[in-house]
């Protein structure tokens, strides 16, 4: 495959590209995802802000 000599090296070549691509996908999917504790904090801040708006 790809002009390479055996499956072991072909797999390494493809996995190099695939692992970087998967990391990129992970990064893009979670681009704006905070940690669970930050999420709770942000929701609380948003609720506070909304309360302020209503008042």
């Amino acid at each position, binding site marked *: 495959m*790809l*002009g*390479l*000599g*055996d499956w*072991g*090296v072909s797999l*390494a*070549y493809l*996995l*190099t*590209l695939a*692992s*970087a691509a998967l*990391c*990129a*996908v*992970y*990064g*893009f999917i*979670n*681009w*704006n*995802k*905070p*940690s*669970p*504790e*930050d999420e*709770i904090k942000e929701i609380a801040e948003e609720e506070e802000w909304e309360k302020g708006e209503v008042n």
Partner: protein
Amino acid sequence: MNTTVVITTLIYLVITAGLGYLGYTQTTSSKDYLLAGRKVHPVIMAISYGSTFISTAAIVGFGGAASKFGMSLLWLTVLNIVLGIFIAFVVFGKRTRAMGHALDAHTFPEFLGKRFDSKFLQIASAALIFIAMPLYAGAVMLGGVSFLTVALGLSQNMALLTIVSIVGTYVMMGGMKGVMYTDAFQGGIMVIGMIILLWFTYSALGGIVPAHEQLTALTVKVPPAWVEQGHRGWTSMPELFSPLWWTLISTIVLGVGIGVLAQPQLVVRFMTVKSDRELNRGVAIGAVFIMIMAGVAYIVGSLSNVFFLSATGKVAIAAAGSPDNVIPLFIKQNLPEWFTAVFMITLLSAAMSTMSSQFHTMGSAVGHDILEKGMGIKSGKPVRVIRMAMALAILTSTLTAYFLPGFFKDGATIIVNGTALFFGLCAGAFLAIYGLGLYWKGLTRAGAISGFLSGLVVSVIILFFVFEKVAKPLGLCNALFGIPSFGAGTPFKDIDPLVYAVPVSLVFTVLVSLFSKKHNAAHLATCFPMRK
């Protein structure tokens, strides 16, 4: 001396100095100086992590190794990405960031000290960094020096003075911001340089598949001595369980990234960002960066055989004289002259980005962990003590780089293996307690200290008396017992110290933790702010 090279190098040095100055103008507190204010942009953090990770040795050294092992070395890139980026950022990085923020830790030794509520651990870790890192820094410095001597026609000493003055100034003045801004710039140059190198190599051979096919067709030219060791061509894996196969696998499994997970200069970067968002983004950027750096070096190193065999009838290593000469000679003979300048800067960037982090890590270990926190030495002006310690660390590393090649009989070898020495010590001493400490609440202070000491002692014994690559040039075993190493003539001489040290450290950490006093609930609540 080439005018293009001189002008390019000077422009590069001026921009680097400017970014260092920018870091200086934005630094007002210890938090700025040690952790860049904990507000670093994810792109800067990821590229800084990658460019610190990849030094000149990774490009030239491993590229040269690929000219022998061939593309089977790409397994190393796969694991560099999976372990060195994904596992490092997601499994280790996120916890380190959250815990580091919660404990208000500014350095890796302080992180360990606060996590295990142990001043001893903080000071001992800092001392280990300060004692062992100058050899590693010396190795990287000499890499940078060798390119500066060629680029600017400077003498060895003048080149050393130039590179230390520039890097030392921006690290001392700009602190972590100076380091990370310049790292990002240097990392950008490294990416451009490596992409051009890959493009030229593949296009000169008619494209990706034709290039691979030409290399595969050269299997018949593999030297008989290599075939005996298990070599089956540059595009095939070595014979299963052959000596070459074992070397490759141990390099991949051990050289990879296991040691990288416990490198203080890399771990601290996780604490420079504000939230997990930056780390998620960093995974994407860091993985692509490492793929370009390591992947290109291994592919080009392998393909260089096609060029050398057609030009000289010899395989790359034979034509270049040594593995380290393969990549530079390949570029000089086959790529346009202007690219020599670009590549020179690429390698200088790789060396300087690693050096700057080493200086910063050593200086902060002495200044912050030992002098300020350990001995209570304070100065009226923030970061003055750390800056002075930074100067001491820079001086120590420079003297190491200056004197060591002539000090030991095999000085040049020990300098090069300073990297192996530092990685071995760090993995042995830190990996078990740092990794377990991120997840296991039952890890006690006594468990952490015993894990640190047992791993360190085993690493030191193996490095100084068994692991021939380091023991032989160090010469201590020879001086005491009249033999280069106790591993001589056995397979133990080549087995990396972390193979012994990490399991021993793990066992001590767990066993002692099970039978010693636990941390109180309040301390654990501070250490583990993450949601259950």
